[in-house]
């Protein structure tokens, strides 16, 4: 994610709203960048201002405090991830192909910027009690997304909540690699993660086919 650059000084003919939008966006990008690099505890409003090139007074017109700014940045980043994987899930192909595309999009998103992945998954725990609600809402968004796009002819995975298991599988995998600083190898985990995600929906044989045989054919 590359943010907008600072506006030109002096007369620029932009409306007040456009200026405010630009400043807000730069602050959000800076908050994500600084928190990802230093951790939430070590991040100060001054750091965010320096990277964003925005004044303190403007900051406090837009956000109540550091926490509010970092939480807004987190929300925006999560929205970006959801939009990115949703686009893949709503893409062409049958359900299994769409699932594979979704997981590929997810792994590539995290591999693209290791620091932002850390900010998204690891830092919320340092922010405070808001962490619980952030975790729950994020988890539920992905479960709802999977459920909305399910094929009607999938076998009933009772008694398992297959969508929750799928989201849990993806978070466990990605979190483990992000926390260990090994995001570069995430895309290589696609077959493995495809299997873990699909097996509660499809059963053993079909999940293996989708994850290993199907992926090999898709790559050739």
């Amino acid at each position: 994610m590359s943010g907008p650059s600072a506006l030109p000084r002096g007369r620029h003919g932009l409306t007040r709203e456009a200026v405010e939008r630009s400043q807000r966006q730069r602050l959000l990008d800076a908050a994500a960048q600084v928190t990802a690099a230093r951790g939430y505890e070590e991040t100060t409003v001054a750091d965010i201002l320096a990277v964003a090139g925005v004044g303190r007074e403007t900051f406090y017109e837009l956000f109540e405090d550091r926490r509010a700014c970092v939480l807004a940045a987190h929300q925006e980043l999560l929205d970006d991830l959801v939009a990115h994987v949703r686009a893949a899930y709503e893409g062409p192909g049958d359900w299994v192909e769409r699932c594979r595309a979704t997981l590929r999009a997810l792994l590539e998103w995290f591999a693209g910027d290791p620091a932002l992945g850390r900010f998204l998954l690891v830092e919320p725990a340092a922010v405070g009690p808001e962490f619980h609600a952030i975790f729950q809402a994020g988890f539920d968004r992905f479960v709802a997304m999977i459920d909305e796009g399910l094929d009607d002819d999938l076998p009933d995975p009772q008694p398992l909540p297959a969508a929750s298991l799928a989201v849990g599988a993806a978070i466990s995998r990605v979190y483990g690699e992000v926390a260990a600083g090994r995001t570069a190898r995430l895309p290589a985990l696609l077959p493995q993660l495809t299997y873990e995600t699909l097996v509660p929906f499809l059963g053993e044989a079909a999940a293996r086919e989708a994850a290993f045989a199907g992926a090999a054919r898709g790559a050739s």
Partner: protein
Amino acid sequence: MVAACAEKTYAGTTIADVVSRAAVSRATFYKLFNGKRDCFDAAATHCIDRIALTVAAAASGYESPAEATRHGAAAMLELLAAEPELALVLSGDVVGVDPGLVERYCAFTVPALEGIWEREGVPPPKHLSPGLAFGRAQLLVFHEVVAGRPERLPALVPDIVYLAIAPFAGHDEALRQARLAGAEAAA
């Protein structure tokens, strides 16, 4: 410490929160612990031990690994339903504070499961990792607790049984055991 973290998370907890809940003086706190982190580590270790003992007691005496897993999972979820703060600290705070503690938490579960399956001579399938399954189980529990539904934790028994058995005996056997666990819970 556990109660304070459950309410305010580790990041939001102060020594003042801990000593006021424990009704001890700050001087006593510093005689026992070097600081907030030291006290948290001790508290988390205590939580891990409690869960480990509960699971081991419930699982002992069952011959088959699947049966031991079903009873162990049910006992663990009952304990967490009664004391959701254990789940909040172990699945939430521990993850942010120190991945090493997660490994210690994982370490009582995974080798124990591996041990009981090895005795059966069941070769592990290569597509699922028990360590990851542990993480997934933790996420499901944490999700239910932060959603404010700890009383519904026992309903997760089939899911946890599935996750705990699939890496060792494969999807089909895990699903069969999950159904069985669901039927046991309903009975």
